């Protein structure tokens, strides 16, 4: 689709938590690029490291002794300058947050401060980064509310979060995140907590805003239906590492990694042939304990196609096709067998 300049290059990002039972590597050697105007979906089960990856890009993980970040996150700002976000000091990072990279969260019910009016909360996002008067900031907040589809925006400025429904609060969060026209928006499961009808509205809204502003979106989700709808490219994570990435069509129609295949099979369908069946094809077992990962492929214990070689060493992320990478020792064989 629309492929602009590269705005974000994540290289070998690793996130390690210090726990009482030793270091826990929640994200391992994640690398990807993001171009202006595109949507990259980050898919995986709970605990696969997708949320931690997005928080690490914003440097919103707990501070140093508790969590250590390694690798680099190269961000190209509006001024064309490339900076490593992991090397920035706290003030430098604050100038980037909300201004050039923004984020929206899963829970709109708790992401707004209950004691402040929503207009003030949006206006603050503007005044942190631009030297404008309160009146100007509030006027811009009203424009933003209008842009995210909240009727009667000017009056709504003085509403408190508890006056609004979940979908409306998520719209306010989006307005807050987009207040300074960021180049990258990280959406961490923005529709998971919403009704299905409201989900569709929010997705539609995000698409419209993306087309209007040309921002890049990292869409974190475990909902594959949403992925097919919004993403240009998909990145599948398992146990903290990328196991497959590529364009949305090849990954969704011709997945190479057995894990991705399993994920796609475990989505309930409404087509006639699957309606008669009683059970879904679930992936057996559960996500491995990140403190004691298997020595080889971390998916091996749950994989139907496992061979002894899989359990010996961690497979590399190989390029299977143009722009389609997979981390599986046996992907060629499996593709031939037509799995």
């Amino acid at each position, binding site marked *: 689709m629309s492929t602009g300049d590269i705005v974000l290059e994540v290289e070998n990002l690793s996130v390690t938590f210090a726990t009482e039972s030793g270091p826990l590597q929640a994200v391992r050697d994640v690398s990807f690029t993001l171009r202006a105007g595109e949507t990259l979906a980050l898919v995986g089960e709970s605990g696969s490291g997708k949320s931690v990856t997005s928080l690490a890009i*914003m440097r*919103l993980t707990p*501070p140093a*002794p508790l969590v250590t970040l390694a690798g680099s996150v190269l961000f190209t700002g509006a001024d064309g300058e490339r900076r490593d976000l992991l090397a920035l000091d706290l003030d430098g990072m*604050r*100038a*980037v*947050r*909300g*201004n050039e990279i*923004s*984020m929206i*969260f899963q*829970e709109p*019910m*708790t*992401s*707004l*401060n*209950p*004691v*402040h009016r929503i207009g003030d909360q949006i206006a*603050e*996002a503007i005044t*942190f*980064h631009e030297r404008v008067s309160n009146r100007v900031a509030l006027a811009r907040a009203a424009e933003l509310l209008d842009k995210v*589809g*909240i*009727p009667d925006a000017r009056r709504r400025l003085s*509403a408190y*979060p*508890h*006056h*609004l*429904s979940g*979908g*409306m609060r998520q*719209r306010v*969060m989006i307005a*807050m*995140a987009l*207040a300074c026209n960021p180049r990258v928006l990280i959406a961490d499961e923005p529709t998971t907590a919403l009704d299905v*009808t*409201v989900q569709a*509205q929010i997705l*539609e*809204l995000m698409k*419209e805003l993306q087309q209007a502003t040309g921002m890049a979106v990292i869409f974190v989700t475990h909902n594959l239906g949403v992925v097919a709808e919004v993403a240009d490219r998909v990145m599948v994570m398992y146990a903290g590492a990328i196991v497959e990435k590529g364009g949305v069509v090849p990954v969704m129609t011709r997945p190479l990694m057995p894990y991705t295949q399993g994920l796609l099979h475990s989505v309930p369908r409404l087509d006639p042939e699957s309606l008669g069946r009683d059970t879904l094809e679930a992936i057996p077992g559960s996500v491995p304990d990140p403190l004691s990962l298997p020595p080889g492929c971390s998916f091996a214990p749950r994989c139907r196609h496992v061979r002894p070689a899989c359990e010996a060493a961690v497979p590399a992320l190989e390029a299977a096709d143009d722009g389609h990478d997979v981390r599986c020792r046996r992907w060629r064989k499996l593709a031939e067998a037509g799995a």
Partner: protein
Amino acid sequence: MSSAAAIESVETARTVKPGSRAWRRFCRHRLALFGIAAIVLMVLASVVGPWLIPFDQLKIDIRHRFAPPPWEGHLFGTDMLGRDLLVRLLMAGRISLSIGFLAMIVSTAFGTFIGVTAGYYGGAIRVALMRFVDAMLCFPSIFLLLILAAFIQPSVATITLIIAATSWMEVARVVEGQVRSLRERDFILAAEMIGAPGRYVMLRELLPNAIGPIVVAATLTVARAVLMEAYVSFLGYGIQAPMASWGNMLNNAQQYLGSAPWLAIFPGLMITLSVASFNFVGDGLRDALDARLDLR
């Protein structure tokens, strides 16, 4: 986009403000209402009363010593120097209640500062500050109070500061716990996401959400401070004669306990009434705010 928004309900049907619900819960607490009434009455009487009574608190009248109440206009009787007891009680109320409120303000401000700092920064800063709080709590505060009072010239200001210095720890603990739990909330992450500086997060995001427990702790601190002032003055280290405080009035009364019991009974009642009232109000506020503080 606008049609999409129209489908969605804009406003949930909640018309009652959280504040007015808390007020109704507070009103259901009978003792707290009694406490409020008693406090307002005591404050008003202390401020206005001495002007309305035709006696001076320092006027000595040897002919009418130990007049039992009520005696020719001396409603509460007179003391060993013939001074009107009622006017002295009210003047003492000015001193004792002022010390109570001022010590509350100082200790709440300091305790809140320590608590927010410790809760927000966490890590080594929290460990250092909160262990300091623990250490302060380990001192038997009455001895600390007496030692400090023995070295420092007693006056309203110094007694206030000394009491505040021994009573900010509870507030610090309450605030630290509150801030530490609020810190994990999504809206704090959201504030940091939009690039809020630490000062803003502490003062505008965390503090307003912790105000309920702070108010409760502050109210209980007034009761404690009034009691502390009474202790210190009773033992002779606090407010000095001829200035009256409820504590030193008790002190003066003890040798006449058998012959003129009203000299001890009235200041004792005032101390009991004020301390109990502040505690009742604190309890009522806790029920109204703390238990089900509606954050949504």
